[in-house]
Every structure is written in structure tokens, then in C-alpha cells.
């Protein structure tokens, strides 16, 4: 009888130990403007995960230019998940670091882009320089703020939106190149990331117009007031698809594969989509998108695959060493 009691007590101890809550730490390495989005999302996910498993999960955030973040992960930053500005930066996690499989983008719906955004023009209240469309950005005397496409994912979307507009309007690559060269001559300072560029425009009061993520422009107005800035929606822009992935090599080493995968899956839930919309990202979920339709203006959007032949091609032509950006900016 005594033995039974001891055995039961031991069993209770063992199983009790196994059933006790774990504390899990994840690192989400993201790009510049997603700070606020993931602060909200992480809190919601932690609550969800606790209710589902009883485990506490803490998600640490790291934000910088998307390209710089991809390099940091390849250099050893132990990211459980990467939520970067564009697929090309996550592609680099495969091509350089072999940290994710080649087909990483097929693992989640919508090409692993749970929310989208676009590129708009943020101007000062009253639009003193009369900015209406991309053409106004190349006029002499107009100062434009946009980050460095070499380090910032957002900057690459900005560049491609402007390029797409010029190509469509002027009909040749040479003219588009000339347009882009004129535009970047009006850029006095290249920040390394989108948040830095917003700081340059909003806080340092440099520039007449900032080419900006739509969500970042909304945030600037929310933070600083509609009496200071206004958004100009250009006639044509680009569908920006920030992408997400689990960093396989890291999560396998850390044993966080399941929770990291669940974290990204949660972005696609109604709750995740609501949070994205509340933070001015365009949700994929049609119901949620309809709910927030008034917030997001409708405009003609180019796509990276349809109009630029995909990120690999766009990257090689425009942003690789000696690509078009180097040719026009280093001249």
C-alpha cells in the first residue's frame, strides 16, 4: 500500500512536471514600419496561445530596413520568424543562408503575404507644392524623401511604383530610367529604412513629399494629426506584399517550430486580419477587407509578378550591384 502511495506521488510529480506551463520566447525579425502592428498582434497571439496550450509565449521584435534584416538573419540573428517587406529579402534566406527551403513562399496562403499595402505620397498640410501624381516629384525644387532601396524593402516598392508609372506613361525603359534619375536627384537624404524616412519627413521636416507605405502614411497622420499632413493617392501604384516565413533552421535548433508556425498561421485568422487592418495594412480576408474598405482608397495597382516578372528579375535589373539604381544614383 505504501509502495502504491509512493508510486502515485512520484507519478503525479512526473506528470505534473510534464504538464506544467512552459515559457517560450520567439524572435520576430521584421522590417521598419511594422512595430505597432506586431505589438498588437503579439499580445493577441500570446493570449491565444496561452488559452490553447497553457504556455506563455513572449515574442521579441527586431525592426530595421528589410534588406538589412535579411542580412542580419543570414549572419546569425536567431529569428524564429521573418516578416519582411518583400519576398526577395526572404528569398535571400534561402539563397545565401539556406535557412529556409526554396519553396518557402508556398507554405502559407496568398504567397505567404497575409496582408498587403501600397505606396502613396505623404505631403504637408495644404500640399504647398501641389503634388498630385508621380510627375510632380521630378519637378525642380521639389524635395522628395524616400529610403535607400539597397537596404529598405519599402524603398524598393517606392522605386518600382515610380518606375511602373513612368514606363506606362512614357512608354520606354530609357525614359523611365531618365524619370527615376530625375526623381532621385530630388532626394537629399537616403534613410536606411522606411521608419527613418518617415522620421526625416515628419520630425526633421525635410522634404515636400515622402514616398511612403500606405500604412506608414496613415500612421503619421494618426500620430501627428491630420492638420499637419495629408495623403496624396497617385494615379498608379504597386501592390506591396510583405511576406512571412518560419526560419526553419533556427526553430529546429530552438525547438520552437510548432509555436512559430502557429504564430504565422494566426496572421490569417479573423483576429490577425482585424489587427492588420486596424494598423492600416490591407487584409487578405475579404470580409475584413470589406469592413475596412472605406479606409483604403481604390487605385490602379501594378503587381510584382505581373508587371516586373517577379522579385528575382526586378532585383537583378534594378537593385543588384551595377543595376539601374546604381547607374542612376552613383552617376
Amino acid at each position, binding site marked *: 500500500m505504501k509502495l502504491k502511495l509512493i508510486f502515485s506521488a512520484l507519478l503525479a510529480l512526473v506528470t505534473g512536471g510534464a504538464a506544467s506551463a512552459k515559457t517560450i520566447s520567439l524572435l520576430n525579425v521584421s522590417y521598419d514600419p511594422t512595430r505597432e502592428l506586431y505589438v498588437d498582434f503579439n499580445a493577441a497571439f500570446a493570449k491565444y496561445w496561452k488559452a490553447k496550450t497553457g504556455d506563455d509565449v513572449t515574442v521579441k521584435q527586431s525592426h530595421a530596413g528589410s534588406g538589412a534584416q535579411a542580412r542580419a538573419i543570414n*549572419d546569425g540573428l536567431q529569428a524564429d520568424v521573418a516578416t519582411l517587406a518583400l519576398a526577395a529579402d526572404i528569398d535571400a534566406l534561402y539563397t545565401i543562408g539556406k535557412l529556409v527551403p526554396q519553396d518557402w513562399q508556398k507554405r502559407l496562403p496568398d504567397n505567404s503575404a497575409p496582408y498587403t499595402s501600397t505606396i502613396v505620397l505623404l505631403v504637408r498640410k495644404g500640399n504647398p507644392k501641389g503634388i498630385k501624381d508621380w510627375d510632380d516629384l521630378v519637378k525642380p525644387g521639389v*524635395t522628395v524623401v524616400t529610403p535607400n532601396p539597397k537596404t529598405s524593402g519599402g524603398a524598393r516598392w517606392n522605386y518600382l511604383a515610380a518606375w511602373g508609372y513612368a514606363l506606362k506613361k512614357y512608354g520606354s525603359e530609357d525614359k523611365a530610367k531618365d524619370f527615376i534619375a530625375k526623381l532621385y536627384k530630388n532626394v*537629399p*537624404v537616403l*534613410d*536606411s529604412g522606411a521608419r*527613418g524616412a518617415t522620421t*526625416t519627413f515628419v520630425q*526633421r521636416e*525635410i522634404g515636400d513629399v515622402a514616398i511612403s507605405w500606405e500604412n506608414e502614411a496613415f500612421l503619421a497622420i494618426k500620430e501627428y494629426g491630420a492638420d499637419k499632413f495629408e495623403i496624396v493617392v497617385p494615379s498608379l501604384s504597386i501592390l506591396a506584399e510583405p511576406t512571412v516565413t518560419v526560419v526553419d533552421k533556427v526553430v529546429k535548433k530552438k525547438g520552437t517550430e510548432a509555436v512559430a508556425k502557429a504564430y504565422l498561421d494566426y496572421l490569417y485568422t479573423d483576429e490577425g486580419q482585424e489587427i492588420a487592418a486596424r494598423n492600416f495594412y490591407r487584409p487578405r480576408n475579404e470580409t475584413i477587407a470589406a469592413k475596412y474598405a472605406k479606409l483604403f482608397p481604390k487605385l490602379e495597382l501594378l503587381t510584382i509578378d505581373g508587371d516586373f516578372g517577379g522579385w528575382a528579375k526586378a532585383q537583378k535589373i534594378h537593385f543588384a550591384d551595377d543595376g539601374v539604381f546604381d547607374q542612376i544614383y552613383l552617376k
Partner: protein
Amino acid sequence: MRTFLPSLRPALGLLSLLIGLPALRAQNRDSVDTEIQALRAQIEQLDAKLRVLERKNEIRDEAAAAAAPATPRITINDRGFALASADGANSIKLRGLVQLDSRLFFGDGGGIANNSFVLRRARLVSEGTFARNYSFQLVSEFGGSAVSIQDANFGINVAPALQLKFGKFKSPVGLELLQSDSWTFFNERSIVTNLVPNRDLGVQASGDLLNGRLSYALGVFGGVPDGGSTTNADFDNEKDVAGRLIAAPFKNEAGAFLQGLSFGVSGSLGREKSTAGRTGGYKTDGQQTFFSYAATTVADGQNWRVSPQLDFRNGSFGLLGEYVASTVNVRPSATGAKVELRNTGWQFAAGYVLTGEASSYAGVVPAANFDPAAGTWGAFEVVGRCSTVNVDDATFPVFASALTNANVARAAGVGLNWYLSKAVAFKIDYYQTRFGFNFAAPAVSATQILRQDEKTFITRFQLAF
């Protein structure tokens, strides 16, 4: 009319002036406004340029701050050259040790070629850590007559209480032997060090317990003879276990008189089984051999050593003492009768730093380096030592010749150490060793250096960083 007109001229002039003045004033005002506007525009342009420059500086600072955590640290000082990752988890350190000795023997009857310059040690030390908890050490010796690897080991630092070491390193038995070659009181370690194992191949666990008041080391080694080092290959199938337990009970009591006291015991236990000769020889302070086993003698059976030891430091004063008993089973040849021999020795050495710096097991660091221009002279230390080694009488004449060997060496030494800097030192020692002989020994030893006391000056120029 002609007379009228001239009289009107001043009036007309005044009139025209009165009429033209407001227009002129308006013209001037426009000009000033234009100028103000131009200046305002210029100020705005300059303000914009200034903001851009300020922002560029901010971006540069941000980039530098972001890059800082990843920037490796380089340290070059009198402790060596070190490269470390920003978080300190990975590092490589290069150090060196050069000792140039002059040995001068006198009163030895002449005819012995023992007065010499010796490149006693010329070592390149590379050591470091990987992923914070993994360490390595590689010590190459270019001094003496051959290039060799003195130490080659790596460690796993599990916790302060448990550190594992694998490879070639010093066996944890001899107190003075475990002290760095650079920081012993004397140029040469005492003769008692002849009785303890030197470098060996093995695995060792060590660590600090009770907040550093107790430290231990315990390892399994291939086994080497007294004073010997491994030739980088195990000699036989047998192994030795060696260990050390040291207490420093007052270590954490700041200001206590006995704070610098540590004492303990070390020892080794093992077996040797060989058909070829494998026994150590013993050297004097002057590095001349006063005893060695016959070439036919082989170690066969259990061996053990025990060594109580203490180290005491208080301010400028330092004291080190150890006793060693080394027991070995030997046969006169592979098939001869086995005999157990026990050799013993002890030493006490003390030092006092005349210039007031602290005496330390890890060396003396001068408060001010030798710099004639600044009028500073470094640190000076006086040292003294006495030591004895007794070879078991049963050794003679079967296992060693009484004709050519001493069975007792009693040595005394005094010295002066001048630490010009942490890295550079000049040391001068005087040693005198008196020999005793087995009753079977002849009146006059066949070995010339044993016919009288060994008297020698050893001076050393040392660079250790």
C-alpha cells in the same frame, strides 16, 4: 517769359521732387521687399540644407550605433593581442614568452662545458573561446633544441563548478609546477618539482566550490614519470588518476590577515607496465642531472604521489611550500625482482616586493613601469628558497649507479627580480646545492659536477605578454 522761366525753375524742381518722391519711395520699398524675400528664400534654403546635413549625421550615427554591437573588439596590451567578438563569446588571444638565460657555474673544478647562454623558453601561445563556453589553448615551444607542442587542449566550461579539459596540459599535482613559467619566484622551479608529473595527455574536471573557497581538479591521464612530460602518445596501457583539492577559507574576507592563504593536497595514483626503461631523472637548480635510473630499470606496478602544499600571500609578502612523496615500483630489468622505491622532497620559497606591489601567484605587476625619463623604476622583489630531494637508498646500486649519482640534493637560493613592466623582467638568482651519497658510493663521485657543491648564477631576461 525768358526772365520768368528761370525764376520758376527752382519751384518746378521742388515740385517735381515732391511729386517724384513717393514714387521713389515706393520703388525703394519694392526693392527692399524683393531683397527681403530673396533673403528669406535663401534662409529657407540654408535651413533645408542644414536639416539635411543634420539628418545625414543622424543616419550616420544610427548606422554606427547599429554596427557597434557587431564590431569585433581588438585589444593590444602587455598581456597580449586579443580579438573578440562584440559580445565576448568568441575570442582569440595571442601571447608570447621568451626567456634568455645566462648560466654561470663556478667552483666546479673547470673542464665542464656548462657556462652558457640558453634560450630557455620561446613560446607562442594562442588561446581563446568559442561560443562563450568552449575554450582552447595551444602552446608551441621554439626554445631549447627542438620545436615542440607544450600544451594543446580544449575545454568546456559547463559552470564555474565544473570545467572540463581535454588534451595535453599540466597534471594537477605540483604546486609550483602549476604556476606559470613567467611568475615563479625563481628562474628555475625547485628540485622538488622533479618528483611530480609534468604535462600529460588526459581528461580533467575542475572547478570552484563554496564561492571559490574550495577548488578541485580530478583527471585521468596516460601517466608520466617523475618530472616527465608526455611525448604526445600514451606509453602503455595503464592510466594514472591525478587530483588536487585546495582550500582558501578566508578568500572572501576582505582585509583578513589570512585572506591570501590557500592550502591543500594533491596526488596521483596509477600503474605502469613497460618492458623498456621508463623512469625519470632529477636535475639541480642549475639544470644539471644529479640522479637518474639505470637505463635497464623499468617501471612496473603501482605508483603514487602525494603532495601537501600551501601558498600564502599578504601584501608584498609571498610564501610557497610543498612536500612530495613519489613512490614507484621498478624492476632492474624486464624480468628482475620488483622493488618499491619512495623518493621525497620539499621546498619553501618566499618573496618580498621591495617596492610595495602585491606578491601574487600570478606575478608581480609594477605600479609604474621602468622609465628613466619619468624617474620610475618598476618593481623589485627579493626571493629566497630552500629545498631538498631524497632518493630512496634501496635504489642503489641495482636501479641506479651509486658511482655516478647523488641520493640527496639540498639546495638553497636567493634572488632579485626586477619587473621593468608587466611584460619585461630581469632576474638574477644564486643557487647552491649540496649533494649526499649512498653508502656504496665512492669517496669521489665519478660524475664531475657532483664532486663539489653546485654554485651557479642564473640570470634571465624575460619577455612575457
